[in-house]
């Protein structure tokens, strides 16, 4: 190891976005742990305040700053690190590092790039260099032609013959890539791709080939291993981030497996990676012919998955190798006795399934293909494919019970659905099997290897057998066991054997549970030990399976353990922030002398790292599985309030089975979750709330709306597709909406609430002990109410609310805490208009903003809450929000560029995929840092204003004036232009997209003559005028920063008009003193 390295700069990946999510919190945290073990000081740049890596216990110095060359250089100047790690922060860190290298910054400040040299990274990122490089060692890549213009792309496609695929260099997860069957499709896609990149690749199509990946590791002595291989369930053509993936490969022979393995070693050696890389192959399903599709010379989503799939800590090892260690010098951290220089042997199968949230977006296509749209993933572990896939399909958390047993999943045009996959693909296969499609036919339409389909068919066949039985007496014990081995839950078994009605399900599944326990049909706990039991291992990394008779571990049952339930798959509304909460709860549980037990199944998290807790159950967060584990562990209790909504929803049911829930009682949780009960309670304690009603007929809705007046917020029951929560402003919109939500009924009622315009939205995150509020943090939204709190820009401490408002919010919170006898974390959202305060939501659990306020306040609210839940006495922290001399701003990150056709507009449903939190001396500095961190730039020259309703026009007057004073050129659509002129502000008119004459907005955007687009929607309905939609969408597609909220636009504009980049202070978190 190189002893001259004392201080290392680590680049993070910033906000979570599609294609770049929690996996980099995991890899960065591992890397910093590895450095810390060597006594090396770490300096981290990452504005993602909700991550675990941005914690004192992981990094020594943390800069909540944008991961861009400008800021990284300034941090280098200040910190003078000896080395830098570029491969642990995804594509963001890699691109930033590459640019710094090109500009000679590392050389200038004597910073050594540790691990894989930048030259090697560039060889893998530039397609032409990459192909040349692999040609040098006789490794095949798809036949392809690199082009720099649309015209050349069309020519290249003629040469290769359609269908072809195009790929853009230097982009996240396949952005700007896709298949084209004809010149028209190519023309459209290539145009778009060139907005992200200057070079694209036109390639032969290998649609239908198997897709296989290898995770490869190399040290400075040229020792190489492959840690894991993985096979995509979906053949090539579907991005690996969009595909179900299994590890290890299932349909490859030894010869194929090792042929690709040998190629992987040849490639990593030739490229010169030191650390980890990922090689993706296409493998001909009819021969051993192959192509190398891609090499990622950095830690990736796949490497995080491989780490979790095998128990091999790839990021940790890669960091050690970057410091110059030889592989054979490192220990296998699972066995502690064998070497890290080996290839894990699995004795189970893992199955990764993507999680999509496409219903959250207006207008987006549901088809899946060569670019990534999923927002998270799950990993399930089993000892049969049937078990693993059924577990996984439940884990994705969209109300599914497995491969079979789901209601309302019938598809019309099956052939089309099978050949043109959507996010529902796997359930389409289930439906096809149900409707009698053969494996051969499904294979012809999907090209999915028949082996996978046979296995799925096994699940369906067993279901048909189960249906023959009508009672537990009839059901043979062997059949029951077989069903459990195939991953059937008590719920599925109840549905097929007992056949209860919807309301009787709970009773039915409990009956199954009781029956099978009596028969001794219970799951066993197995370890993930990296060596398939060949060597004894101290591992605490566990899963449950029915394919087995013996537990690998012993249970002490001494009530000295506490189980913490995790947050499941990352999805819109629940991601890394809950992982931070879970990890902190585990730390506290341990610190208080308990054994900490974690249940979670998200491979992109730090909480599923086995060194985080005493026992990790990588398994389902379901009623059944949690009970299974509870039965075995007999813990002191369960913590359900730090993992978001999934554990929260289980609380009452678990409580019903005599499970001890620590902290706030499940009845209270239910009193807050249940709209009616909560509302009654607020009335009782005299706290105001917007008027609302649950209604089950169209007439009732009209009557109610007439009484409270427009606008109103309407939430349909969740089962209705095509109609999400929405605000409607007039009778016409209401009719349109109700048409979509056609089947309003007693069973599927609609909740209609009063919608208050121009109101401030305020949040309080707090911790209470036996009903007494111990600590709190009040923050305000920049946007007015109507923007989902997950999409809002949040300021803490609040800068613009009345003292009186704060006082009253505190009072209300105290009342609620007392009434619900809260012991633990809670969060409330309130509206304030003038001095009128109304409660809109209350959750008796940790919230999304918990890490943000905890870090800004420098008071760990989760630690406090966990101590309370464990029954420890805590002291009220002395700090209050008035002591802070600085301001934190949390800003959302959107991934609209990934979601073709989606309208990038904010509404009452959440659509952001991540967030950042930055700290500044004042509001303007903090918001500027935050906005720059989520991809905005300070515009160069030209700004397009299209400011919507009169209210927004007024809101933006001052900012428009500031822009002109600052020397910006304003462009405006007609109405905005007229309004500006009335106010003596100069602007140039651009015509609407659909107008034929004059300089057109769309043309200006496409020609990149605009540096920032401000487009405020006319009203809050989603039926937005075509023209506005086209402007917004063009801004996204041509990669021009877009703001659609007047108050946010105004705040951002004022910030960059007041401050230049150089005015921004480079201060680490520790330098902001409370």
């Amino acid at each position, binding site marked *: 190891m190189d002893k001259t390295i004392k201080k290392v700069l680590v680049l993070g990946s910033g906000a979570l976005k599609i294609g770049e999510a929690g996996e980099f919190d995991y890899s960065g945290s591992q890397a910093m742990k590895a450095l810390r073990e060597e006594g090396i000081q770490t300096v981290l740049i990452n504005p993602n305040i909700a991550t675990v890596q941005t914690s004192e216990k992981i990094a020594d110095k943390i800069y909540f700053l944008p991961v861009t060359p400008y800021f990284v250089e300034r941090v280098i100047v200040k910190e003078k690190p000896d080395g830098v790690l570029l491969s642990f922060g995804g594509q963001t860190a890699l691109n930033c590092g590459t640019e710094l290298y090109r500009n000679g910054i590392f050389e200038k400040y004597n910073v050594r790039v540790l691990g894989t040299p930048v030259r090697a990274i560039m060889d893998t990122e530039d397609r032409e260099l990459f192909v040349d490089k692999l040609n040098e060692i006789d490794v095949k890549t798809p036949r392809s032609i690199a082009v720099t213009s649309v015209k050349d792309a069309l020519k290249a496609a003629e040469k290769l013959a359609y269908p072809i695929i195009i790929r853009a260099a230097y982009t996240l997860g396949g952005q700007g890539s896709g298949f084209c069957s004809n010149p028209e499709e190519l023309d459209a896609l290539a145009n778009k791709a060139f907005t992200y990149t200057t070079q694209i690749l036109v390639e032969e199509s290998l649609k239908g080939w198997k897709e296989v990946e290898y995770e490869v590791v190399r040290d400075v*002595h*040229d*020792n190489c*291993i492959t840690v894991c291989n993985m096979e995509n369930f979906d053949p090539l053509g579907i991005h690996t981030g969009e595909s179900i993936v299994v590890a*290890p*490969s*299932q*349909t*490859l*022979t*030894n*010869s194929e*497996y*090792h042929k690709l*393995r*040998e190629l992987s*070693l040849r490639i990593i050696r030739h490229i010169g990676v030191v650390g980890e890389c990922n090689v993706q192959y296409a493998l001909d*399903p*009819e*021969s051993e012919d192959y192509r190398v599709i891609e090499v990622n010379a950095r830690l990736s989503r796949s490497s995080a998955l491989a780490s979790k799939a095998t128990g091999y800590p790839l990021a940790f090892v890669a960091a050690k190798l970057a410091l110059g260690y*030889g*592989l*054979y010098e490192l220990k296998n951290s699972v066995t502690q*006795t*064998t*070497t890290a*220089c*080996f*290839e*894990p*042997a*699995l*004795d*189970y*199968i893992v199955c990764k399934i993507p999680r999509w949230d496409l219903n959250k977006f207006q207008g987006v296509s549901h088809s899946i293909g060569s670019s990534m749209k999923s927002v998270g993933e799950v990993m399930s572990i089993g*000892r*049969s*494919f049937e078990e693993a896939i059924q577990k996984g399909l439940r884990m994705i958390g969209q109300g599914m019970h497995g491969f079979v047993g789901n209601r309302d999943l019938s598809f019309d045009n099956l052939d089309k659905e099978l050949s043109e996959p959507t996010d529902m693909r796997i359930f389409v296969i289930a439906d096809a099997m149900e409707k009698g499609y053969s494996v051969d036919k499904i294979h012809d339409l999907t090209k999915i*290897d*028949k*082996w996978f389909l*046979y*296995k799925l068919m*096994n699940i369906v*066949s067993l279901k048909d057998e189960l249906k023959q039985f009508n009672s537990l007496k009839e059901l043979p014990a062997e059949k029951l066991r077989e069903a459990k081995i195939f991953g059937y839950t008590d719920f599925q078994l109840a549905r097929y054997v007992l056949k209860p009605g919807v309301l009787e399900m709970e009773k039915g599944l409990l009956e199954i549970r009781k029956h099978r326990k009596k028969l001794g049909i219970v799951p*066993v706990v*197995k370890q993930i030990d990296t*060596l*398939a*039991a*060949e*060597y*004894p291992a101290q591992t605490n990394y566990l899963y449950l399976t029915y*394919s*087995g*008779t*013996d537990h*690998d571990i012993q249970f002490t049952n001494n009530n000295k353990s506490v189980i913490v339930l995790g947050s499941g798959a990352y999805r819109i509304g629940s991601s890394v922030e809950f992982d931070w909460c879970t990890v902190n709860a585990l730390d506290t549980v341990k610190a208080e002398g308990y054994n900490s037990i974690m249940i979670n199944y998200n491979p992109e998290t730090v909480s599923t790292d086995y060194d985080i807790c005493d026992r990790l159950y990588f398994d389902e967060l379901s009623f059944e599985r949690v009970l299974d584990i509870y039965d075995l562990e007999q813990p002191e209790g369960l913590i359900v309030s730090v993992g978001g909504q999934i554990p929260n929803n289980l609380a009452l049911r678990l409580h019903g089975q005599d499970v001890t829930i620590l902290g706030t009682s499940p009845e209270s949780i239910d009193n807050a979750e249940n709209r009616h009960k909560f509302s009654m309670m607020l009335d009782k304690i005299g706290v105001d709330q917007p008027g609302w009603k649950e209604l089950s007929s169209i007439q009732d809705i009209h009557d109610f709306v007439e009484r409270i007046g427009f606008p109103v917020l309407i939430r349909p029951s969740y089962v209705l597709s095509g109609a999400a929560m929405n605000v409607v402003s007039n009778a016409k919109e209401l009719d349109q909406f109700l048409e979509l939500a056609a089947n309003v009924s007693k069973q599927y009622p609609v909740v209609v609430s009063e919608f208050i315009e121009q109101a401030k939205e305020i949040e309080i995150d707090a911790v209470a002990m036996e009903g007494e509020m111990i600590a709190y943090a009040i923050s305000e939204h920049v946007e007015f109410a109507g923007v989902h709190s997950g999409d809002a820009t949040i300021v803490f401490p609040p800068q613009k609310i009345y003292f009186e408002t704060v006082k009253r919010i505190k009072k209300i919170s105290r009342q609620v805490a007392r009434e619900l006898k809260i012991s633990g974390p809670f969060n409330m959202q309130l509206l304030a208009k003038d001095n009128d305060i109304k409660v809109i939501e209350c959750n008796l659990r940790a919230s999304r903003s918990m890490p943000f306020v905890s870090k800004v306040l420098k008071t760990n609210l989760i630690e406090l809450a966990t101590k309370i839940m464990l029954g420890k006495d805590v002291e009220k922290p002395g700090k209050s929000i008035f002591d802070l001399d600085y301001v934190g701003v949390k800003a959302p990150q959107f991934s609209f560029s990934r979601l073709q056709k989606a309208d990038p507009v904010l509404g009452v449903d959440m659509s952001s995929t991540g967030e950042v939190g930055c700290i500044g001396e004042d509001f303007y500095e903090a918001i500027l840092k935050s906005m720059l961190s989520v991809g905005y730039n300070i515009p160069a020259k030209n700004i397009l204003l299209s400011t919507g309703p009169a209210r927004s026009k007024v809101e933006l007057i001052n900012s428009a004036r500031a822009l002109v004073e600052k020397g910006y050129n304003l462009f405006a659509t007609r109405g905005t232009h007229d309004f500006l002129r009335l106010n003596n502000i100069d602007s140039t008119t651009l015509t609407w997209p659909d107008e034929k004459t004059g300089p057109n907005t769309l043309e200006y955007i496409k020609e990149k003559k605009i540096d920032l687009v401000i487009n405020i929607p006319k009203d809050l309905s989603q039926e937005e005028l075509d023209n506005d939609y086209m402007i917004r969408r063009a801004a996204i597609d041509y990669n021009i920063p877009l703001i659609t909220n007047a108050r946010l636009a105004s705040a951002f504009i004022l910030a960059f008009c007041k401050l230049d980049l150089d005015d921004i202070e480079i201060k680490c978190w520790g330098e902001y003193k409370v």
Partner: protein
Amino acid sequence: MKESHSIKLILEDGTEYIGKSFGARESISGEVVFNTAMTGYPESLTDPSYKGQILVLTYPLVGNYGTPVWDKENHMLKYYESDKIHISGLIVSDYSFQYSHWNARGSLADWLEKNSVPGIYGIDTRALTKKLRESGTMLGKIIYQEENIEWYDPNKDNLVAMVSTAKREVYGKGKNKILLVDCGVKNNIVRYLLEKDTTVIRVPWDHDISKEDYDGLFISNGPGDPRMCDITIKNLKSALDGTKPVFGICLGNQLLALASGAETYKLKYGHRSHNQPVLKVGTKRAYITSQNHGFAVDNESLGKDWEPLFININDGTNEGMKHKTKPVFSTQFHPEASGGPTDTAFLFDEFVEMIEEQK
């Protein structure tokens, strides 16, 4: 899915594991060993080194890609390691009744059945493996329908004599003449040698090699206790007095060790996997290797003219040795892989280079 019959495994310590039958419906006994490889069952099952053994595969899903076609190349089956199944019985967790692969000609169950080899699925193979790890390799019986059969300890037999070729055979027409002493050789060793412009003369384990004209001598892998091959050891002793290059693999390593005066011993549960790390002694180079052996060479017992060539990084056992002055070396692992990683295939090149230098 086919109708499955109950079948069980009994270990010599009395433990019983009840599973379901696939393959031949027969009872057999042998030595129970486990292998942690995740691919390569057609290769393992036809590896003569498994003679007399009941094989437990720790990877739970088996049979997925069926069994390959019976094409021949150079008079050897192209996709198998010998002409028949050598294991006595197969134990897995989850057998895949349907298979899918472009090169498959039939199912694993049918193949086992044709070769009269019983298979069991539905057993907790992880629990069984841990048992073997803790207690060491044990004798076992697969009992189909309560049939009563005797225990059988294969290590008491000369297994090599059972699997070695019956007659001298010649492969290829290359310029380097290699004499291959077949103690149960895997086809892939012959395939690798033939790639290097060689003629391979394959002779039985007890063949009098002193009468043969060759450029290099190769001692193959094979089953059982190396000390059973006293004739081979004696023959090797005289060959080592000469100066011709010698290369041994697996049992070949052990036989060379015994011929040189060193000792061998039985490992508690052996090395059978595709992920064994070895370090080349005196260097920083490590390799991942394929292994299948129950006996090992005692490093301490190596004579003064000999030194260890490779060491197992996990447990420090001998993974190969070389003569300090002569072109003689051997490995405990399998550079020919099949199945397993191909990292050390370069050793075949080194062997042939030695031959060419000597000429």
